[in-house]
């Protein structure tokens, strides 16, 4: 097990990049939504740092996974919580790691079941090599490549830290 990267400093840089991105896109009132579990911790940080008015949303994509019939349902699914209307809103969607792109696809499918957003900006702390779908984050903390027998996990919510472990 190896702890690596300073998550806090990555988040500071990501918030600066996100501010600039939103300004360029002329988005002045975004809604921040984190994908459970790691994405919610990061979204909470970004939400506070950017001083967003709307409460932070949480998305659980378990019902939208495309591998449900192979791996079954997670019985500890908590309901998604979107305490604002998403219809016509500019969404900042946050996840800890983007790899295949399938989680983000599921998240977008779920978001559209709540309404049609004006835009979705994707923020990811780590962008791993291994995309299976044409989905790319707009804001990335760090690009990485892991060996076949490795996986990465965000630990939190207090003292956020990234750990690479052997499978």
């Amino acid at each position, binding site marked *: 097990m190896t702890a690596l990267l300073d998550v806090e400093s990555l988040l500071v840089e990501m918030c600066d990049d996100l501010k600039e991105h939103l300004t360029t896109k002329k988005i002045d009132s975004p809604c921040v939504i984190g994908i459970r579990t790691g994405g919610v911790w990061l979204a909470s940080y970004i939400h506070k740092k950017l001083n967003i008015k709307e409460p932070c949303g949480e998305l659980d994509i378990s019902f939208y996974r495309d591998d*449900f019939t192979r*791996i*079954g349902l997670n019985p*500890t699914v908590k309901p998604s919580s979107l305490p604002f209307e998403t219809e016509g809103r500019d969404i900042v969607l946050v996840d800890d790691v983007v790899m295949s792109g399938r989680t983000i696809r599921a998240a977008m499918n779920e978001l559209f079941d709540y309404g049609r957003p004006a835009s979705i900006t994707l923020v990811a702390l780590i962008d791993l090599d291994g995309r299976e779908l044409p989905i790319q984050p707009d804001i990335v903390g760090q690009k990485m490549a892991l060996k076949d027998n490795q996986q990465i996990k965000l630990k939190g919510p207090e003292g956020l830290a990234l750990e690479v472990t052997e499978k």
Partner: protein
Amino acid sequence: MTQPTEPNRLQLNEQGRLRHFLTLDGLNREILTEILDTADSFIEVGERSIKKVPLLRGKTVVNLFFEASTRTRSTFELAAKRLSADVLNLNISTSATSKGESLSDTLQNLEAMASDMFVVRHSQSGAPHFIAESVTPKVSIINAGDGRHAHPTQAMLDMLTIRQHKGHFEGLKVAIVGDILHSRVARSQIRALNTLGVDEVRVIAPNTLLPVDIESLGASVFNSMKDGLDDVDVIIMLRLQKERMEGALLPSEHEFYELYGLTTEKLKYAKPDAIVMHPGPINRGVEIESAVADGPQSVILNQVTNGIAVRMAVMSMAMSGQTAAISTSS
């Protein structure tokens, strides 16, 4: 038809996951808790403006009701539709079986239409079990009530309602009142309550409406509402199933109501925060007084709402178990 003897040989796959849902007999606390937890997570879907998730998209669910039902069939249909399945409601009274086609032929035809799940209600105990034995591995069977045997999804929605209102099962005293003899619901409820660890399950009824083996299921018998309701946390009223009564088991409905109907007065025997349940349809003035059925302690409409979430949970778990079983065997 014979009573099923080894339900789990059929209803669990090699990984111990649900593949059919026929009875609660033999299912352990972990699986029942998994059903409740999964159902809990589906409740929020019913509160969305778009009440759908894509879990069973592309799957075909056939409601195969050999016995009349409105509430159960509707909630199964809504559950399947909220999981994005295609639903076929087969009205058996006007189907080919009434023209002489055998059950096996009807099932084979439905399988040939690439159905993935049959929700079966039948007046004969063991019919869903028999169908589960007969169908191909690509079909899951959900029991929506068979004879006097079992109604497992009803029992699980009752358990979900109890957990929502009481938070736990340990230490609870639960009374089931009325026509226990003809009730498949009561049998499944007693099984579920004991598996989930309640303190005591009581049945309250005249001896003519009690099966002889009721105590062996894990329930204590009371013939008086005063004694039976004393200090209970949950009261489950049952419908008098007059259509199943072959003889004169009751002097009159009026006398039954006098002795066993749940009135505001009799409700006072239970704990002040006791909840009142009824699987429906309610016979007002026969089993329960309107003031109680519509009163602050009644959770009867919560049961109906929870029925959709529990059926979504069972359907998605069985479909996932079916796919896992097929991929293991192929």
